[in-house]
């Protein structure tokens, strides 16, 4: 019995070497390939969090679907929220290629055993929030996600290509709404500035903790799951957003925001990481409501899902 065990160890070593070679060459790992358990677990966690963020992210803007102030805006918003459901679906499917199960991941979300992006725990009191979510939140998401199109895991990378293309439409639609509002009444302009004041800092937090406090980053970079550090991506986002804010005619709420003549990049003020920790650990303004609604969708309709399953079995048995 000891010889096969020895072989298994040898096999594992050669599989690991092959995996390392694929990563080093910048090629992709596919579902049938051998992968280390840590790689699989890290990917499932990251992809599931991402999928949960898409689904929970339907809610803050979805709150305006029934009250959107023109039919055109209603159509745009409905198409956008629908896209987010679609993104959630591709991402859960990518996680399923790693052996996860969508229903189980949903349960983990509802039981707060897995996280989602803390940005979606902020409320959306005005219609300008719809525009600012498109411009800043989707803008930050794009900065985060474009490099993931090169992620070492094939199904995730391919899902991200499609997601990023759609996100870029959302961002432009959001910015266009804000442009229209800035050309509108004084109340509309005040609404836009107020929304920018509320969303700017949380959008900076979307890139995650600073590099010196990001325990999983180094391993994820080595595995090619992540391509840039949190702070690099955050800086890229700030540099992109400042000229957009100027073109829009709004002020970003950071007195320390200024170009650094040495680097040509923008310096910005200190982020309130205590707020981040509070929100991510469940104490944000809307955490409870977000989870309550997701739970209600599952529980109130459990009879529907059960009926669909029973019906499918019945009719599969008939045709078999």
């Amino acid at each position: 019995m000891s010889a096969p065990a020895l072989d298994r160890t040898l096999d594992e070593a050669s599989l690991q070497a092959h995996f390392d070679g694929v990563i080093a060459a910048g090629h992709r790992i596919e579902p049938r390939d051998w992968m280390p358990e840590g790689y699989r677990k890290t990917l499932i966690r990251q992809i599931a969090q991402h999928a949960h963020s898409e689904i929970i992210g339907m809610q803050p803007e979805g709150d305006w679907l029934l009250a959107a102030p023109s039919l055109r805006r209603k159509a745009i918003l409905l198409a956008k929220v629908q896209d987010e459901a679609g993104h959630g679906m591709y991402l859960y499917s990518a996680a399923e290629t790693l052996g996860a199960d969508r229903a189980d991941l949903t349960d983990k979300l509802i039981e707060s055993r897995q996280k989602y992006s803390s940005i979606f725990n902020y409320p959306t009191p005005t219609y300008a929030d719809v525009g600012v979510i498109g411009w800043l939140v989707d803008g930050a998401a794009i900065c985060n996600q474009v490099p993931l199109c090169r992620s070492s895991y094939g199904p995730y990378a391919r899902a991200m290509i499609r997601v990023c293309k759609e996100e870029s439409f959302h961002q432009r639609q959001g910015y266009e709404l804000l442009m229209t509002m800035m050309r509108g009444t004084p109340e509309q302009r005040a609404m836009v500035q107020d929304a920018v004041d509320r969303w700017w800092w949380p959008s900076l937090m979307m890139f995650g903790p600073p590099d010196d406090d990001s325990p999983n980053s180094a391993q994820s970079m080595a595995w090619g799951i992540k391509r840039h550090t949190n702070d690099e991506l955050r800086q890229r986002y700030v540099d992109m957003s400042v000229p957009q804010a100027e073109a829009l005619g709004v002020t970003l709420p950071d007195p320390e925001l200024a170009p650094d003549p040495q680097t040509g990049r923008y310096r910005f003020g200190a982020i309130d990481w205590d707020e981040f920790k509070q929100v991510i650990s469940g104490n944000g303004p809307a955490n409870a409501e977000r989870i309550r609604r997701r739970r209600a969708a599952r529980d109130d309709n459990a009879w529907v899902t059960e009926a669909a399953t029973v019906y499918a079995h019945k009719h599969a048995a008939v045709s078999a």
Partner: protein
Amino acid sequence: MGHEETVYDALDHAHGGEGQWAFGTGFDEPLAGVDTTVPDGVDPADLGAYCLMLGDDALVLAQRLTEWVTASPELEEEVAVANIALDLLGQARLLLARAGSVGVLGRSRARATASIPDEDALAYFRDPDEFRNTGLVAAPNGDFGRTMVRLLVAATVRLAVLAELRRSRDPVLAAIAAKGVNEVAYHRDHAARWVLRLGDGTPESHRRVQAGAVEVWPLLADVFSPTDVEHRLTAAGVAVDPSTVRGEVVEVLTAVLGQATLQVPEWPAGTVPRGRLGEHGPELTELLGTLQGLARQHPAATW
């Protein structure tokens, strides 16, 4: 490296892929570039009133279906229900714009600022008694089973009407109907599949969807009753008399419910078309309060 640049590049040049965005990124009025001349011998007031009937049905049902977004049983259903609502919203925009194009705007035009397009003046600045939808589409959703029964019934009626309307002497209505037929055929199919699954699923789903049918069926009472406007426009070859589609609707619904092992509730006796004449219950006032609230708070704003 190269790949990432390609993606950034694709994002920067995203205008090449506008077909992917459901509504384009332009700002066109729904009927931009369309010849909106009224056919000979047709009273524009009648034509506009008829467009409001079909347009309000679509707008109100779209609003009801949108209530399911973030509350649906499955993610696939979130996508489907949003898709159906989007189709109906698109039909509503065309039909309201058509009503506006023939000058049927009622009191709404005086309430809305000039910069607000006709479709929005009509959707956001009419009071409930100016809406021309049936009670069938305005009724609250109830549970998912009742929602799907109502969608099945409403889509079956609408599909039968639109199929005939493709031959309308008004080329704008004929074109709107031709586009709508494909969409509503899918809505009917989607709802029918759910009614089958729920009817022939578990005892609980059977009980619930049967109860939903019992609640929805009485709403058919005024759906087949034509108004004077529909009489005149049918005679002029422009509209469809709803009483002529009753046979097809009864046949389709009887077949679907039968296959779903459900009992067909009693067909209600016909009544005056209250909804078409602007008589509605409190549920429409509530629905419109949500739909119109923000737009009315800022009557001088454009969005």
